[in-house]
């Protein structure tokens, strides 16, 4: 964590207010007990623990939050939200920060996680149901990690775990839904 004096004024709350407005979660209930950090299976990889990240949101330290890896490392396992004695849905807060970052056009510390999410949704717009091989190919093209998981992928292909060809079932429906959602968000 940084060691510097934090000045708190009225503006400090605009960030936590944005989290309430977009995600519907009020972080002010958190009193930093640390239970979320203790149970988090991925905390060992994080720069700020979930507890510290929530504290930073309370203090309005937007840059500190946006430059953190923490929300991009969240596996969405919901352990923190389940165990929070104050009923703060921490996992939802982390999702909200990711959504806010994209609205503010901020680059994530772990770009591959965002790329995966975007390729996933892009795939749905075409096929309606996830066409796994297609998504993996697109992900490889954008992350340039061609050799990663090659052996496993080949084994899975040999066992015919994937369907080789896509089926176009409901791509149109998903595309329409996502287009309407985008329109709402712009309004």
């Amino acid at each position, binding site marked *: 964590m940084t060691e510097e004096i934090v000045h708190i004024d009225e503006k400090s709350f605009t960030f936590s207010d944005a989290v309430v407005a*977009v995600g519907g979660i009020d972080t002010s209930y958190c009193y930093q007990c640390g239970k979320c950090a203790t149970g988090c299976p991925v905390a060992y990889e994080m720069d700020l623990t979930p507890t510290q990240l929530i504290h930073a949101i309370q203090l309005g330290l937007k840059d500190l939050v946006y430059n953190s890896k923490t929300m991009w490392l969240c*596996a969405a396992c919901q352990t923190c939200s389940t165990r929070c004695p104050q009923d703060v849905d921490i996992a939802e807060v982390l*999702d909200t920060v990711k959504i806010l970052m994209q609205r503010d056009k901020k680059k994530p510390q772990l770009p591959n996680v965002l790329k995966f999410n975007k390729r996933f949704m892009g795939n749905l717009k075409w096929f309606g149901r996830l066409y796994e091989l297609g998504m*993996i190919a697109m992900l490889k093209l954008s992350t340039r990690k061609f050799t990663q998981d090659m052996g496993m992928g080949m*084994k899975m292909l040999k066992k015919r*775990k994937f*369907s080789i060809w896509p089926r176009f*079932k*409901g791509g149109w429906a998903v595309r329409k839904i996502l287009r309407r*959602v985008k329109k709402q968000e712009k309004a």
Partner: protein
Amino acid sequence: MKYAYYPGCSLHSTGQEFDKSLLAVCEKLGVELVELEKWVCCGSTAAHNLSKVAATALPMANLALMPKMGLDEVVVPCAECFSKLKIAQHNCKTDKKLKRDVVEAIHKDCNDDAKVIHPLSIFAEEPLISRIPALVEKNLSGLKVVCYYGCLLTRPPKITQFDIAEYPETMDNVLRATGITTLDWDHKTICCGASFALSKPDIVVNLSHKIIEDAKEVGADAIAVACPMCHANLDTRQDDMEKEYGVHPQMPVLYFTQLMGYSFGMTPEELLLDKHLTDVSSLIEKANAPVEEEASPEEEEATSFQFDGHH
């Protein structure tokens, strides 16, 4: 018994063993599953990172297909889909603005009263739980299995309302009804890293390895799962675990429906047991070995931890 059925993307692809074995087991038990017509993806691990409305609209678009079929209960075997459908319903019920946006996005009514059920819940309750023992054709009491529930069946409990969040027993009860011995262990609900399967596999290898290590430590012959993502991580990453930690875990990972089907006398081919990357032949050998009568009923009782308190 007739339910709508939402298989989800994985069960038509990498998790096809789950789909096939579930349908076979349901047929034996007299449960009819009618697949939703024109279902689409629930948004899974991606949508909730990008937009709350999209992450709610995709599940609700699927539930909106049900009234036309005249069914108000839907069986959802994939834990990820199960959780996404339940969360979407909950969010629509508690957030009026979100509900309005969702209705506008899907151009259909919000079916937030539909009952979303995991197959384990039907199997574990009457009348099906009592039908199970009569269907057993193969004695699998020699098999020791740990049940892995993963994250999303039980969490967050106020939404999923599935068993006790920190120490569920539903899958254990279903498998015990077939005669299989299930063991107590620590990793029933500890995350395997599912959503990072492709974007950050090092996390998956680490977390899944801990789960398999614990299963080995308590002496399990196999891990039973109820989620295609848990299955993919635990089954397909064992070669990577060997590279990282030096020893190949050689731990068979099966869907609970495959174990049920096997005890009902179905063949490994019918249950697609050969689709798994980690070899299950050791398990089949053990299942077919003559059962030694060593464990007395009292001993078995002592190993099955009874969790009767509420959290």
